[in-house]
């Protein structure tokens, strides 16, 4: 398997989910793996379960398939409303947010979290995505940036809902005000089954937190040279999420506890890049 990532920062990661189990602490009955397959940067369509090879702690698993089209999408926008996006960046952020909402399909839901030094849930998950759009219009930037606290809230809220959860964090600055330490929030994200993307303006002060967050959850950081690219970046990100494969299997021949390392590959496609989460934590 060779890596030909056009999204320069894609790193292999893996996803896991204790599907149909109310809490994570009970025995794993089924594991969901969210997989992106790209070839020369383009998502690959038309694969079947038989094309995938999944190893759970090295043990090959029998994989079934959950079509991504049949799942509703939960898109949680976590948007930076701090002083540093004042002016043009915020206007572009707003139009980009609306652009992603326009491309949602019936049945999809969206929510809006904003963060300055304070995290606010502006709109809980709703199928009426227009409401999210209206809330975006009301954002007035002020204060410091608590991107870590804001991400944490988005991950926890996203994880609580059924469906495919996509968290998109937009921030152009580094954290200046969070209470929570970055590593604790990364740990929370690793345990959740959300996929987090980040949209970040290139910044000499590199957003390590966002990079690590997206790596651990199987998403990616979209860096834009100018804030003007945001609309296009959001749309590309959503398309990528829609073209994922959701694999499902019941773990066989592995322990029901502890950290499970996942390896996902596509048989017979040497040029494909497979992006999935690096593993999952099962049991207490």
């Amino acid at each position, binding site marked *: 398997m060779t890596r030909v990532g056009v999204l320069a920062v894609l790193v292999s990661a893996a996803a896991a989910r204790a599907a149909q189990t109310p809490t994570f602490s009970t025995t794993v009955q089924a594991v969901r793996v969210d997989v992106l397959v790209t070839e020369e940067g383009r998502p690959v369509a038309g694969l079947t379960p038989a094309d995938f090879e999944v190893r759970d702690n090295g043990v090959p698993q029998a994989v079934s398939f959950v079509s991504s089209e049949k799942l509703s999408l939960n898109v949680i926008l976590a948007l930076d409303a701090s002083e540093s996006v004042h002016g043009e960046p915020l206007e572009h952020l707003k139009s980009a947010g609306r652009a992603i909402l326009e491309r949602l399909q019936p049945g999809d839901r969206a929510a809006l979290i904003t963060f300055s030094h304070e995290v606010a*849930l502006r709109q809980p998950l709703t199928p009426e995505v227009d409401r999210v759009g209206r809330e975006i219009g009301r954002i007035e930037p002020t204060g410091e940036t608590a991107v870590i606290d804001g991400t944490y809230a988005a991950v926890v809220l996203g994880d609580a809902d059924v469906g495919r959860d996509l968290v998109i964090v937009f921030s152009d600055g580094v954290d200046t005000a969070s209470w929570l330490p970055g590593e604790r929030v990364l740990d929370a994200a690793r345990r959740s089954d959300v996929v987090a993307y980040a949209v970040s303006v290139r910044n000499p002060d590199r957003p390590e937190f966002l990079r690590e967050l997206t790596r651990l959850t199987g998403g990616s950081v979209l860096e834009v040279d100018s804030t003007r690219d945001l609309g296009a970046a959001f749309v590309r990100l959503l398309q990528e999420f829609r073209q994922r494969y959701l694999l499902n299997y019941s773990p066989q021949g592995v322990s029901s506890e502890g950290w499970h390392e996942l390896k996902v590959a596509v048989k017979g496609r040497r040029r494909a890049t497979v992006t999935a989460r690096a593993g999952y934590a099962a049991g207490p």
Partner: protein
Amino acid sequence: VFRTEVQHVEVDAFVTDAGGKAVAGLTRDDFQVFEEGVRQDITVFAEVSVPLDRVDAAPDGAAPLPRDVATNDEGVRGRLFALVLDELHTDARRSGDVRRLAAQFIQRHLARNDLAAIVSVGGSGTQGFTGDERRLLEAVERFTGRKLPSATLERLRTIERQQDMLRSEPGPGDGRPRPEVIAPRPGLERDPHDLERVHAARASMEVLERVARGFGDVEGRRKAILLFSEGIDYDTLDVMGATQRNASAVVAGVRDAIAVATRHGVAVYTVDPRGPLSPVGSAEDMPMPAATVGADFGVDSRSFGRELRISQDSLRTLAEQTGGIAFVDTNDFTAAYERIVRASSRYYLLGYYPADSRRDGAYRRLEVRVARRGLAVVAREGYVRPGPDGEKEEPPPVAAAAETSPELRALLASPWSQPGLPMAVNAAAFEERDGEAAVALTIELAGKGLSFRQEEDRAASDIEVSFVVVDARGRVRAGDRLLARPRLSAPTRELVGRSGLRFVQRVHLPPGRYQVRVAARESVGGQRGSVSYELEVPDYRAGPLGMSGVLLASRDASRSLTPVVDEAVQDLLAAPPTAGRSFVVGDAVTAYTEVYDALAPAHDLAITTRVASADGREVFREARLRPWSDRAEPGGFRHRVEIPLAGLGPGRYLLQITATPTLGEPTSSRELTFDVVPASPRDAAEARHAPSFPAGSLPRPRSRIDRLEAWLAAVERHEPGRADAAAQMVRSWTPDDLQDLAADVALIAALLRDPQYPVMWLVDPSRPGRPRRAPYTADDERRLRALASDAVKPCSPECARNRLLKRGAVLHTDALVRGAAEEAASPAGKAANPARFVIRFSDGQQSGMEEAAGHWEFARTLLDNVAPNPTRDDTVRLWYVAVTAYGQLHERHTRLEDRAVDLFPEDADLLLLAGTFHEVLASPRMQSLARSVHLPAGVSHGIGDERAELREAEKMYRRALAVRTGLTEARVRLGRVLQRLGRTEPAVRELRQAASDLSSRAAKADADGGLLLYYAEMFLGAAHEALGRYDSAKASYGRAAALYPEAPSPRLALSQLALRGHDRAQALSAVQAALRLPAHPGDSADPWWRYHVVQGRKAPSRLDELYRSLGP
């Protein structure tokens, strides 16, 4: 308004043009008044325009400000509106509509000076006249309609039942089919609810009548009743067209109500909540029974239409006859309300003496015409003449305290405040034993209303105060009469003139709603007045957590004269409470409240006191954690808190006291508003001008010596702590000006020490080794020497020199501090070669860079020259403490901390501030700034890397603690710094010790204790977590959450901790709690957001200390 002796009739006429707009500018000649068709001479004519003091547009959904005092000093007198809610004639399904319509009127159409009352016909919710929107809305909320089912429908059902019954009865036995319709038994087709219907109609009309009568004595105010009703649908004719038995009772009821309303000049506006209706009514309202048998009994579909028409007509009649307007068949209630408000705000008052003035109790028809085309008049259509017995309506007697004068009895009979003698009243309920409450009643008579006669060398007066407490049913439950006969010396007379007279009483009442009516009069000027106060005494046994009313006292108010005071109340505050809610800038307010907490098991109670300005900015906060052992029986947790007003500018403020048991829900809170007012006209003018310095408003000095002279004068004129003209002037000077000035001032200082000092050379204080040749002419030199000898006048040369330097430093400090200005050069002038810069930043990013003005450096240079040794001088020390605290508080860093510590190495305050400065430099925001800032070549931002700054902070904190072990703030911060440096075990040790010190301080009502304890617990939580002690971490975060119930950070911490323990549900609910917490604008909700500035919180008092140290 009717006078009983002389028959004089007054009519209010509301005139509109074709577009429905009120018409102004008509004259007496435009009107014609007819009584029984006979034209009358208009003897009284006035165009009345009530200024509408509209309530400030409150943001959508914002609650009105809570007031806890009532006054009768209301400026322009507004209108009186009685909202009569007729539940006996409102369908239960439309209860919500009535509530909404009434609320809409109250919220959008009442002006601030209007009073309104809610009267419900069935007694569900009643509220006496008040301007308090919240109370009105509460009463409206209790409304539930319970109109009887439609009479037509009931009759149809009766007929149906009757038919069924007849069919099932055994017939004559001949086997013939039964007829379709069987002849009714006499009387059975009647409405079974006939009697109830009559009763309901009479009850509604009697209430209307009573309300109209209640308006009777009020003069000079436009009075209106808004009747929310679906109308009286009693059909006075029965099915055969004959008059129903009880019809006369219903008709008489309506007639009487109209008579009383017209006699008192009360217009009745009727509002039909049904909105537009089709003649047959909606299917939902009046379902036609399947059988059509009713037609044979005179009941058919038209009967519903008739019923509807009757009900609407009753509303029209009531309105038209009384000069009101009927809003039936409409759903544009906003327009309706606008019309009511307009009609009550701009109208014409017409009066005449009727030619025929017999006192026969007869109804007289009235007609008002306007002799202009296109104008419409609304006026009452008649009145009832008084009867032969005079029909004088005495106010119902009130059981006021014995010996109460007749004048005060008359005032006490009225449910609303009467202006005259200005006064303010506050009543606060406290729990006593056995469910009874003790109510502290504070009555303050304004000094401006009191007159005195001279008795020898004393000012004398007799003042009578009487009060009654009336319950919801109008019964007097308590009352007393208080007498004061002050004989005052001249200074005391002066004091009373300024601050008035106060009476404090205590009454005992069971839970319930009351109206406290207080009336007072003074004997010399004969002034009298009254105040009505709406009091709710909560049932403290009803819930496990309750709070008493709030008493306020203030330093200034405690000086005013209190001839009658209840000792028990005074003891609570250590001063008599005040009913005034305007405090002068710089006053200190004490609040007292009690928290009754019966929750189990034993727990701590966090009590948070918060003051926010009108725009929501928090200006004061104090949190205390009270241990269970503090709880007294009775009295619960007694909470007394001092609120200094020193830092508060004039404006309106909200005080909120919240009690939160550490068990979690529920919480209890009290709110009230108060005003801060300027002390005097001069202060008021300065307060208005302080925040901004208009550029170039003072002429710039022409020469260097002129400038020095101007500066010396400014130093003398400047009042420390004020943004006066002197501060304004120096603020406008450029960095170059200041540099020259520093040299010139040094020269003056030298001349003060040695009058023979040669003026040939100038020493720039910042480069002492390199004197320059002075650019002065011989004339300049003479002036300089003269200025120096003038400057010496106040005291000895040594003291004059120090005085000049210190006052000069304070002048430039105030130029920045009191002007809320930044240390950036004014646009007026920049230096040719800037040597100092300031970086502007926000959210970790540079937002600009400017040349520094140099005021801090100038002031510091002056103080360096204080003799004999600046490091032994308290003013110099205080200056460093005040300006570094100020700079850190406002993030306008002076960077004077390290120098301050060099000068005063043993000063714990300065060591702490030096530590916090380095901790700030180590914060993510400043580290981010350091990485991203762009500076010109050779300029350095001077921010070390994170660990270097943390280690510097640690060093300073340790030094501070070595000097003063009890400086807990340094210990809390040391713990935080150690943890960030990865030394978790020592961090826990420091934080534990700090938390234990603070817990006892917080319990002892230390204002700072709660704040610092919050930080200590949060940091301790993080440290425990790092060590894997999750239970301890959880306990610490929980205590922090209890101290600041609105702070999200502890909730996020608890959530994250729950997730660590795989408890997703708990993690989610804690996040939801964090996001649901009420958002306050700014950073007031969570002390964590202020951690980088909070160390400067004492800057205002530090500055005050600095000013005081200068002496007179």
